[in-house]
């Protein structure tokens, strides 16, 4: 196991995480492992251990948390959220960590593509003429035409569009 090194940088990172909505209770984690026990991903991926993610977060180990695809392997099923006896909610810790990673420009390409699709199509994929013709065959009305300008305005205003490289 790699040694955990605590320094001023790791403390600053940890403290910034604690301010994130939903991650406030991180330091109450007593490493019981209920989260990992019932995690569908942990059962299949050795490196993905919600308990260990909480531990690394408590020690502000940013580099290890941001390495490879670790943070993006969470399926967001909230099973750990329901199980945690301390209401630490590792799923929310992971969400806070993803936000922090994304602030440094780190985001999984699949998720980046989904986000980039929204101002272009209004949906996570293109729903255009082809799809609407198929819909018509089933007697379905055309898909609602999303107001793309409204979506772009929101995403420009919050800055997310520039951050995924779409604006």
């Amino acid at each position, binding site marked *: 196991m790699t040694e955990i090194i605590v320094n001023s940088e790791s403390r600053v990172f940890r403290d910034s995480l604690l301010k994130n909505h939903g991650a406030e209770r991180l330091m109450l984690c007593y490493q019981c492992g209920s989260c990992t026990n019932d995690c569908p991903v942990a059962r*299949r991926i050795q490196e993905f251990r919600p308990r260990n993610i909480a531990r690394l977060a408590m020690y502000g180990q940013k580099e290890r948390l941001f390495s490879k695809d670790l943070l993006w392997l969470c399926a967001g099923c909230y099973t750990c*959220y329901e199980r945690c006896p301390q209401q630490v909610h590792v799923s929310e810790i992971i969400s806070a960590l993803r936000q922090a990673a994304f602030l440094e420009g780190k985001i999984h390409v699949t*998720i980046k593509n*989904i986000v980039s699709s*929204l101002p272009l199509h209004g949906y996570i994929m293109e729903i255009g003429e082809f799809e609407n013709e198929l819909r018509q065959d*089933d007697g*379905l009305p055309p898909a609602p035409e999303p107001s793309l300008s409204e979506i772009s305005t*929101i995403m420009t205003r919050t800055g997310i569009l520039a951050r995924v490289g779409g604006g």
Partner: protein
Amino acid sequence: MKYAFFVGCTTLGRLPGYEKATRKLCERLGVELIDMLGSSCCGTTYMESLDEVTALSLAARNICIAEEMGLNILTICNGCTETLTKANATLKQDQKQLDEVNKILKEIGREFRGTIEVKHLIRALKEDYGLDKLEKAVTNPYKNLRVATHYGCHLLRPSDVMRFDDPNTPTSMDNIIEATGAISVPYPEKMECCGGPIMGIREDVTWSIGLDKINTVKKHAETLITSCPFCYLTYERAQLMKENKPDLPIIHLPQLLGISLGLSGEDVGLSHNKIDSEFLKTKQGA
């Protein structure tokens, strides 16, 4: 009963059978569904883990459309249900977040007012339509049909946000299904996630999670009933990709309900199901 119908990207673009079955079912039950002009993606369940204000604003924009219609939203995707419910609850409770989101919405001429509710079809049937009434509407009850229910994650979890049914031992979907005469069987790991959200990240893990449930369900039931387009696609694709003979039909809840209410296979879009589900039409009692 009347709702603003929020179909959701995946169903709109990929699952016409699911949407058709929902519309026909509601028509048969006398539930009016009004399309939400200008609505878009809910914001995706991923968005809150990237940027909370964006997630809240995109969801709120859709909610505003329903508010302007003066109607509660009806959803048929667990992901949309969670995203919209969470934004609705947060903005109704948190003045600071509301101010920030409304400042953004003002630029597009909208305002979140907090006047409506978001309900998944299951919740609407249970809370608004009523199980007794549903049971009375069943004209062609199933006989000896053993089904497994898959609630999925976001219909119930996170439970302090969703505030519906029990996150560990839910009954709402099973009760609805039993109103049709079908038997909802208990099975191990019933509440496990389908694995769909990481399909684009670690596909092998998604298929592994999906097939484990498929193989378990095969021992107990003839079909797996879903209430979410992502779960449906995951269980369908896992079999199509990985099995020589995909043979566990995955059926959308409104398809199962529709047939028991006398709708035809075509009405509920049964031919769209890639794993042959036609057997459903032969499971009625005399």
